[in-house]
Protein backbone atom coordinates (compact mmCIF):
# COMPACT_ATOMS: atom_id res chain seq x y z
CA UNK A 1 0.00 0.00 0.00
CA UNK A 2 2.91 2.37 -0.64
CA UNK A 3 0.68 4.36 -3.02
CA UNK A 4 -1.84 5.11 -0.25
CA UNK A 5 -2.21 8.89 0.19
CA UNK A 6 -4.58 9.25 3.17
CA UNK A 7 -4.04 12.95 3.88
CA UNK A 8 -4.61 14.30 0.37
CA UNK A 9 -7.49 11.82 0.02
CA UNK A 10 -9.15 13.15 3.18
CA UNK A 11 -8.63 16.82 2.25
CA UNK A 12 -9.87 16.17 -1.29
CA UNK A 13 -12.85 14.21 0.00
CA UNK A 14 -13.83 17.02 2.37
CA UNK A 15 -13.60 19.53 -0.51
CA UNK A 16 -15.80 17.30 -2.69
CA UNK A 17 -18.30 17.07 0.18
CA UNK A 18 -18.16 20.84 0.60
CA UNK A 19 -18.92 21.27 -3.11
CA UNK A 20 -21.95 19.01 -2.75
CA UNK A 21 -23.00 20.95 0.37
CA UNK A 22 -22.79 24.33 -1.43
CA UNK A 23 -24.91 23.09 -4.33
CA UNK A 24 -27.45 21.56 -1.95
CA UNK A 25 -27.79 24.39 0.58
CA UNK A 26 -27.18 27.18 -1.95
CA UNK A 27 -29.06 25.90 -4.98
CA UNK A 28 -31.16 23.02 -3.67
CA UNK A 29 -29.68 20.60 -6.19
CA UNK A 30 -27.85 17.27 -6.00
CA UNK A 31 -24.19 17.28 -7.09
CA UNK A 32 -24.52 14.18 -9.23
CA UNK A 33 -22.30 14.66 -12.23
CA UNK A 34 -23.95 12.08 -14.49
CA UNK A 35 -27.30 13.70 -13.71
CA UNK A 36 -25.97 17.21 -14.28
CA UNK A 37 -24.37 16.28 -17.62
CA UNK A 38 -27.26 14.00 -18.62
CA UNK A 39 -29.67 16.88 -18.01
CA UNK A 40 -27.76 19.07 -20.43
CA UNK A 41 -28.35 16.70 -23.34
CA UNK A 42 -31.99 16.14 -22.44
CA UNK A 43 -34.85 17.97 -24.09
CA UNK A 44 -34.40 21.75 -24.08
CA UNK A 45 -35.31 23.23 -20.74
CA UNK A 46 -34.63 26.29 -18.65
CA UNK A 47 -32.19 24.70 -16.24
CA UNK A 48 -29.13 24.35 -18.44
CA UNK A 49 -27.34 27.41 -17.02
CA UNK A 50 -26.62 26.05 -13.52
CA UNK A 51 -25.52 22.73 -15.01
CA UNK A 52 -23.07 24.49 -17.33
CA UNK A 53 -21.84 26.62 -14.40
CA UNK A 54 -21.14 23.50 -12.35
CA UNK A 55 -19.19 21.85 -15.18
CA UNK A 56 -17.20 25.04 -15.84
CA UNK A 57 -16.49 25.30 -12.10
CA UNK A 58 -15.33 21.68 -12.04
CA UNK A 59 -12.81 22.46 -14.79
CA UNK A 60 -11.71 25.70 -13.07
CA UNK A 61 -11.17 23.93 -9.73
CA UNK A 62 -9.19 21.02 -11.16
CA UNK A 63 -7.42 23.32 -13.64
CA UNK A 64 -6.32 25.71 -10.88
CA UNK A 65 -4.81 22.81 -8.97
CA UNK A 66 -3.13 21.51 -12.14
CA UNK A 67 -1.61 24.96 -12.71
CA UNK A 68 -0.52 25.21 -9.07
CA UNK A 69 0.91 21.68 -8.81
CA UNK A 70 1.34 20.29 -12.32
CA UNK A 71 3.49 17.39 -11.09
CA UNK A 72 0.55 16.21 -8.96
CA UNK A 73 -2.07 16.47 -11.70
CA UNK A 74 -1.43 13.22 -13.52
CA UNK A 75 -3.95 11.67 -15.90
CA UNK A 76 -2.56 8.28 -16.74
CA UNK A 77 -4.50 5.90 -18.98
CA UNK A 78 -3.51 2.25 -18.64
CA UNK A 79 -5.85 1.07 -21.38
CA UNK A 80 -6.04 1.13 -25.18
CA UNK A 81 -8.09 3.72 -27.08
CA UNK A 82 -10.64 1.04 -28.03
CA UNK A 83 -11.19 0.08 -24.40
CA UNK A 84 -11.41 3.75 -23.39
CA UNK A 85 -14.12 4.38 -26.00
CA UNK A 86 -16.08 1.28 -24.99
CA UNK A 87 -15.78 2.23 -21.33
CA UNK A 88 -17.06 5.76 -22.03
CA UNK A 89 -20.09 4.42 -23.88
CA UNK A 90 -20.85 1.96 -21.07
CA UNK A 91 -20.41 4.60 -18.34
CA UNK A 92 -22.69 7.03 -20.19
CA UNK A 93 -25.46 4.47 -20.68
CA UNK A 94 -25.16 2.84 -17.25
CA UNK A 95 -25.22 6.08 -15.25
CA UNK A 96 -28.40 7.22 -17.01
CA UNK A 97 -30.11 3.84 -16.59
CA UNK A 98 -29.15 3.68 -12.91
CA UNK A 99 -29.76 7.41 -12.37
CA UNK A 100 -26.41 8.20 -10.81
CA UNK A 101 -22.70 7.64 -10.52
CA UNK A 102 -19.97 7.94 -7.90
CA UNK A 103 -21.02 11.48 -7.00
CA UNK A 104 -24.82 11.28 -7.16
CA UNK A 105 -25.26 7.83 -5.58
CA UNK A 106 -21.91 7.64 -3.77
CA UNK A 107 -21.30 11.06 -2.22
CA UNK A 108 -24.82 12.54 -2.16
CA UNK A 109 -27.06 9.47 -2.02
CA UNK A 110 -25.21 7.80 0.84
CA UNK A 111 -25.02 11.20 2.57
CA UNK A 112 -28.80 11.44 2.55
CA UNK A 113 -29.06 7.81 3.67
CA UNK A 114 -30.87 6.68 0.52
CA UNK A 115 -31.10 2.89 0.43
CA UNK A 116 -31.26 3.04 -3.38
CA UNK A 117 -27.93 4.82 -3.47
CA UNK A 118 -26.29 2.48 -0.97
CA UNK A 119 -27.35 -0.49 -3.11
CA UNK A 120 -26.17 1.23 -6.32
CA UNK A 121 -22.80 2.17 -4.80
CA UNK A 122 -22.12 -1.32 -3.48
CA UNK A 123 -23.08 -2.77 -6.88
CA UNK A 124 -20.97 -0.46 -9.06
CA UNK A 125 -17.96 -0.76 -6.78
CA UNK A 126 -18.19 -4.55 -6.69
CA UNK A 127 -18.75 -4.77 -10.45
CA UNK A 128 -15.82 -2.44 -11.11
CA UNK A 129 -13.54 -4.52 -8.86
CA UNK A 130 -14.60 -7.73 -10.61
CA UNK A 131 -14.04 -6.06 -14.00
CA UNK A 132 -10.51 -4.99 -13.01
CA UNK A 133 -9.78 -8.48 -11.70
CA UNK A 134 -10.95 -10.11 -14.93
CA UNK A 135 -9.14 -7.69 -17.25
CA UNK A 136 -5.89 -7.64 -15.26
CA UNK A 137 -5.53 -11.22 -14.12
CA UNK A 138 -7.65 -13.36 -16.42
CA UNK A 139 -7.36 -11.66 -19.83
CA UNK A 140 -4.14 -9.69 -19.58
CA UNK A 141 -4.17 -5.96 -20.19
CA UNK A 142 -6.76 -5.02 -22.82
Amino acid at each position, binding site marked *: *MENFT*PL*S*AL*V*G*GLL*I*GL*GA*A*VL*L*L*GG*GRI*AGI*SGIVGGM*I*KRPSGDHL*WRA*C*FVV*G*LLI*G*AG*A*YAAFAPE*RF*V*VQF*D*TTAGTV*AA*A*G*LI*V*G*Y*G*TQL*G*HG*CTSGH*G*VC*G*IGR*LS*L*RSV*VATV*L*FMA*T*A*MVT*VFITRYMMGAL
Partner: protein
Amino acid sequence: MPLALSALIAGILFGLGLAVSQMTNPAKVLAFLDVAGDWDPSLAVVMAGAVTVSFIAFRIAASRTAPLAGGSFDLPTRRAIDTPLVMGAMVFGVGWGLAGLCPGPALTALLSGQRKAFLFVGAMLAGMLVYRFMSRGRPDGD
Protein backbone atom coordinates in the same frame (compact mmCIF):
# COMPACT_ATOMS: atom_id res chain seq x y z
CA MET B 1 -27.03 33.35 -3.73
CA PRO B 2 -28.39 32.59 -7.20
CA LEU B 3 -28.51 28.99 -8.37
CA ALA B 4 -25.92 29.53 -11.14
CA LEU B 5 -23.42 31.07 -8.69
CA SER B 6 -23.99 28.23 -6.19
CA ALA B 7 -23.34 25.76 -8.99
CA LEU B 8 -20.15 27.54 -10.07
CA ILE B 9 -18.71 27.64 -6.54
CA ALA B 10 -19.81 24.04 -5.91
CA GLY B 11 -18.15 22.95 -9.15
CA ILE B 12 -14.89 24.71 -8.25
CA LEU B 13 -14.77 23.04 -4.81
CA PHE B 14 -15.69 19.67 -6.30
CA GLY B 15 -13.06 19.92 -9.04
CA LEU B 16 -10.43 21.07 -6.58
CA GLY B 17 -11.27 18.12 -4.32
CA LEU B 18 -10.99 15.63 -7.19
CA ALA B 19 -7.59 17.04 -8.16
CA VAL B 20 -6.20 17.30 -4.60
CA SER B 21 -7.17 13.68 -3.89
CA GLN B 22 -5.79 12.62 -7.33
CA MET B 23 -9.13 11.04 -8.20
CA THR B 24 -8.57 12.82 -11.51
CA ASN B 25 -6.03 10.09 -12.30
CA PRO B 26 -7.61 6.92 -13.71
CA ALA B 27 -4.50 4.90 -12.76
CA LYS B 28 -5.03 5.89 -9.10
CA VAL B 29 -8.71 4.91 -9.26
CA LEU B 30 -7.82 1.56 -10.83
CA ALA B 31 -5.29 0.99 -8.02
CA PHE B 32 -8.24 1.19 -5.60
CA LEU B 33 -10.40 -1.11 -7.71
CA ASP B 34 -7.55 -3.65 -8.05
CA VAL B 35 -8.03 -5.36 -4.69
CA ALA B 36 -5.84 -8.30 -5.72
CA GLY B 37 -2.89 -6.11 -6.63
CA ASP B 38 -0.95 -3.41 -4.80
CA TRP B 39 -4.13 -2.03 -3.25
CA ASP B 40 -4.45 1.73 -2.76
CA PRO B 41 -7.32 2.49 -0.34
CA SER B 42 -7.21 6.26 -1.04
CA LEU B 43 -10.57 6.31 -2.86
CA ALA B 44 -12.30 4.90 0.24
CA VAL B 45 -10.88 7.77 2.32
CA VAL B 46 -12.04 10.29 -0.30
CA MET B 47 -15.55 8.81 -0.16
CA ALA B 48 -15.58 8.77 3.64
CA GLY B 49 -14.60 12.45 3.82
CA ALA B 50 -17.06 13.50 1.12
CA VAL B 51 -19.96 11.47 2.53
CA THR B 52 -19.40 12.88 6.03
CA VAL B 53 -19.71 16.49 4.82
CA SER B 54 -22.62 15.61 2.53
CA PHE B 55 -24.42 13.86 5.43
CA ILE B 56 -24.13 17.01 7.57
CA ALA B 57 -25.34 19.15 4.65
CA PHE B 58 -28.44 16.99 4.19
CA ARG B 59 -29.18 17.22 7.95
CA ILE B 60 -29.00 21.03 7.67
CA ALA B 61 -31.14 20.98 4.52
CA ALA B 62 -33.78 18.91 6.32
CA SER B 63 -34.24 21.74 8.83
CA ARG B 64 -34.65 24.40 6.12
CA THR B 65 -37.64 25.12 3.92
CA ALA B 66 -35.71 26.51 0.94
CA PRO B 67 -32.15 26.74 -0.39
CA LEU B 68 -30.35 30.11 -0.25
CA ALA B 69 -31.04 30.68 -3.96
CA GLY B 70 -34.77 30.50 -3.22
CA GLY B 71 -37.13 28.09 -4.93
CA SER B 72 -37.21 24.64 -3.45
CA PHE B 73 -34.98 21.66 -2.80
CA ASP B 74 -34.98 19.49 -5.93
CA LEU B 75 -34.21 16.06 -4.47
CA PRO B 76 -34.63 12.58 -5.96
CA THR B 77 -38.04 11.04 -5.41
CA ARG B 78 -37.40 7.46 -6.53
CA ARG B 79 -37.35 4.98 -3.65
CA ALA B 80 -37.60 1.53 -5.24
CA ILE B 81 -34.66 -0.83 -5.62
CA ASP B 82 -35.72 -1.72 -9.16
CA THR B 83 -34.20 -3.44 -12.18
CA PRO B 84 -33.00 -0.23 -13.91
CA LEU B 85 -31.13 0.79 -10.74
CA VAL B 86 -29.45 -2.59 -10.36
CA MET B 87 -28.67 -3.00 -14.07
CA GLY B 88 -27.54 0.60 -14.46
CA ALA B 89 -25.20 0.44 -11.46
CA MET B 90 -23.67 -2.81 -12.68
CA VAL B 91 -23.25 -1.57 -16.26
CA PHE B 92 -21.64 1.62 -14.94
CA GLY B 93 -19.33 -0.48 -12.75
CA VAL B 94 -18.06 -2.42 -15.76
CA GLY B 95 -17.22 0.80 -17.60
CA TRP B 96 -15.62 2.33 -14.51
CA GLY B 97 -13.47 -0.76 -14.06
CA LEU B 98 -12.41 -0.86 -17.73
CA ALA B 99 -10.90 2.64 -17.84
CA GLY B 100 -10.85 3.93 -14.24
CA LEU B 101 -12.96 6.96 -15.15
CA CYS B 102 -16.36 7.97 -13.82
CA PRO B 103 -18.16 11.10 -15.13
CA GLY B 104 -16.50 13.76 -12.91
CA PRO B 105 -12.88 12.71 -13.44
CA ALA B 106 -13.71 12.12 -17.12
CA LEU B 107 -14.50 15.83 -17.49
CA THR B 108 -11.39 16.97 -15.59
CA ALA B 109 -9.25 14.55 -17.64
CA LEU B 110 -10.01 16.81 -20.63
CA LEU B 111 -7.64 19.35 -19.02
CA SER B 112 -4.74 16.98 -19.76
CA GLY B 113 -5.45 17.46 -23.47
CA GLN B 114 -5.05 13.75 -24.11
CA ARG B 115 -6.89 12.20 -27.02
CA LYS B 116 -8.15 9.34 -24.84
CA ALA B 117 -9.85 11.82 -22.49
CA PHE B 118 -11.81 13.36 -25.37
CA LEU B 119 -12.55 9.88 -26.70
CA PHE B 120 -13.97 8.82 -23.32
CA VAL B 121 -16.11 11.94 -22.85
CA GLY B 122 -17.42 11.78 -26.43
CA ALA B 123 -18.33 8.12 -25.99
CA MET B 124 -19.91 8.87 -22.58
CA LEU B 125 -22.15 11.56 -24.09
CA ALA B 126 -23.05 9.13 -26.89
CA GLY B 127 -23.95 6.49 -24.29
CA MET B 128 -26.19 9.01 -22.52
CA LEU B 129 -27.91 9.84 -25.81
CA VAL B 130 -28.43 6.13 -26.53
CA TYR B 131 -30.23 5.84 -23.18
CA ARG B 132 -32.38 8.90 -23.95
CA PHE B 133 -33.31 7.46 -27.34
CA MET B 134 -34.11 4.00 -25.96
CA SER B 135 -36.17 5.28 -23.03
CA ARG B 136 -38.30 7.64 -25.14
CA GLY B 137 -42.03 7.22 -24.63
CA ARG B 138 -41.63 4.80 -21.74
CA PRO B 139 -43.78 5.86 -18.78
CA ASP B 140 -40.83 5.64 -16.38
CA GLY B 141 -38.40 7.06 -18.94
CA ASP B 142 -36.96 10.54 -18.87
